[in-house]
């Protein structure tokens, strides 16, 4: 197989980032902060790897099944946070994140058992997952001489669908109403538990799908490991923050972040630590927070001068 080319690599990395961001936007529009994407994505990777190595069915079906499994598992995981939020008022900011640490322990446990994730012939000192067979890997298409994963198309479709549902349907309207003014929403008969809980589950399922895309896309290697998610969840969350919860803006932002990420692998060859990506991305988010903030402060100053 020929190498995917840098554009192909960037696009294939952008896909999971975009899906995570799109899911985050769903929760954010409902006024909920899901910040456990890293753990949800890790579980999605685990489910996709488990099904991908087990299911003895033709190629398209394996991938479909592993994506479904990933979405269900991660959706349920986020559903736990939703359940705690709406029955016991546990803040979802805390529960989603703490559940992420538990998810990491669960997948590590999975890597110690052959009937779960551990490779049947593990030769390495650390526990690695079973190698994914070729039929469980996302096929690619050629675009201007680059091998691009079909995951990119899936990610774009998911984002467009989410954007449409949020902006143009009744359920999206209810969800946004809940986020903008929970009291009005309740008067209008919107159930916070159903709509808000649904939004949280959907955002978890999106993180799971992103995990499936990441696992089968090739950039993450061909087997499950305990650190396979390697910050994709966090970076997808930053994409959503940077896009100010607008799905259309998330598309170019995901691409920029993916470029920074793949670029850092090349940088690593020149001796720059690849963790610089996290730094640059976080700085980018902070930097973009500043101009509107300063504008707001100036407006306020002008306002008080005019009044006095």
């Amino acid at each position, binding site marked *: 197989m020929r190498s995917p080319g840098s554009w192909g690599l960037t696009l294939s990395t952008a896909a999971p980032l975009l899906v995570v961001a799109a899911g985050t936007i769903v929760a954010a529009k409902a006024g909920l902060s899901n910040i456990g994407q890293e753990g949800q994505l890790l579980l999605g990777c685990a489910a996709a790897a488990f099904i991908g190595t087990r299911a003895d069915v033709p190629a398209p079906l394996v991938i479909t099944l592993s994506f479904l499994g990933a979405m269900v598992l991660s959706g349920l995981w986020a559903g736990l946070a939703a359940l705690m939020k709406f029955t016991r008022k546990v*803040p979802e900011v805390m*529960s989603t994140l*703490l559940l992420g640490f538990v998810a990491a322990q669960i997948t590590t446990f999975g890597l110690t058992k052959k009937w779960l994730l551990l490779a049947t012939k593990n030769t390495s000192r650390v526990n690695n997952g079973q190698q994914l067979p070729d039929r469980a890997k996302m096929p690619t298409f050629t675009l201007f001489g680059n091998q691009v994963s079909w995951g990119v198309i899936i990610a774009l479709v998911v984002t467009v669908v989410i954007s449409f549902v949020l902006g143009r349907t009744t359920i999206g309207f209810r969800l946004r109403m809940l986020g903008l003014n929970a009291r009005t929403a309740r008067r209008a008969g919107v159930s916070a538990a159903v709509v808000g809980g649904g939004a949280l589950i959907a955002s978890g399922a999106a993180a799971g799908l992103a995990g499936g895309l990441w696992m089968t896309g090739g950039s993450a290697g061909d087997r499950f490991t305990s650190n396979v998610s390697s910050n994709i969840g966090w970076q997808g969350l930053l994409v959503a923050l940077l896009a100010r919860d607008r799905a259309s803006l998330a598309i170019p932002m995901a691409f920029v972040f993916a470029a920074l990420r793949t670029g850092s692998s090349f940088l690593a060859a020149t001796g720059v*630590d690849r*963790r610089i990506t996290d730094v640059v991305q976080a700085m980018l988010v*902070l930097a973009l927070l500043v101009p509107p903030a*300063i504008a707001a402060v100036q407006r306020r100053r002008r306002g008080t001068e005019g009044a006095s």
Partner: protein
Amino acid sequence: MIAFGGSILDVLSSNSTYSSTMRFAATLVFAATGEWIAERAGTMNISLEAMILTAAFTSALGSDLTGNVWVALLFGLAGGFLVSLIQGVMSHRFGANQFVVGLTLNVLAVGLTAFIAAEVNPVVKRAGTVRIPLLARIPLVGEALFAQAWILYFLYPLIPFAWWAVYRTRWGLDLRCAGENPQAADVSGIDVNKRRRQAVYACGLCAGLAGTYLTIGQVGSFGADGVSGRGFIALAAVIFGGWVLKGAVGGAVVFGFFLAFGSVFQALGYEANPQVLGALPYVMAIATMILFARRGRQPAALGRPFVRGLT
């Protein structure tokens, strides 16, 4: 089941359990005290994790540069304060979303400290253990409370001081008012956002102590994953404590016990699944929130930004 009960009894009657619980709890107690102040003023300060991590790193840097523990302490305080400065100014002066700022700072701190630590590779000199005469001889808890690295002893004046500052001073009254009813506070002439910023700075300094203690007092080195969610566990402790200081401190000690549990359990010769032990503190933090999140009354304006003129 009987064997399990016996092992728990063993753990509870061992001196080392209490010492180790206190070692793990100290970071959480420092952090939870600071977070409690910030939350009473109305800030859900999720950059607590970043503050602890940055302080843990800068104190390691200070120790590496000078070999002096006091300098390391100053560096740690400065590190925690720096993060709180960004958080406070961004969210309570520029009006940026406090969760967005907090999250971004968390990612930034993880990346930046790991990046610089890989370049510098700081060598840490640990703070010495100081035994307080007589008090250290109290059975069970004496060693735990009074024979520790001396940075831990900052806890004993800090907790009453924080209580006094928040409940018994004009400043504290303003601060709690900013967290309960910012509109009313504003009308009565309190600069709400200024008080909130100050509360975040106070939290930064407490987190600075937490991070310094973690590096200089407990671990003796800086590891990027050494903090691993402690800031969030401290946040859970504040919720567990129902936004009351003694509750938050108690919660932090309980979570400290669960953090220590794994190592104590194994040191006593018992076998347990390492992943179960690893997940235990987080599961317990979640479980206690399920049980107690509704019990306390959170500050009415917690997490809501204050903009004058808006209701």
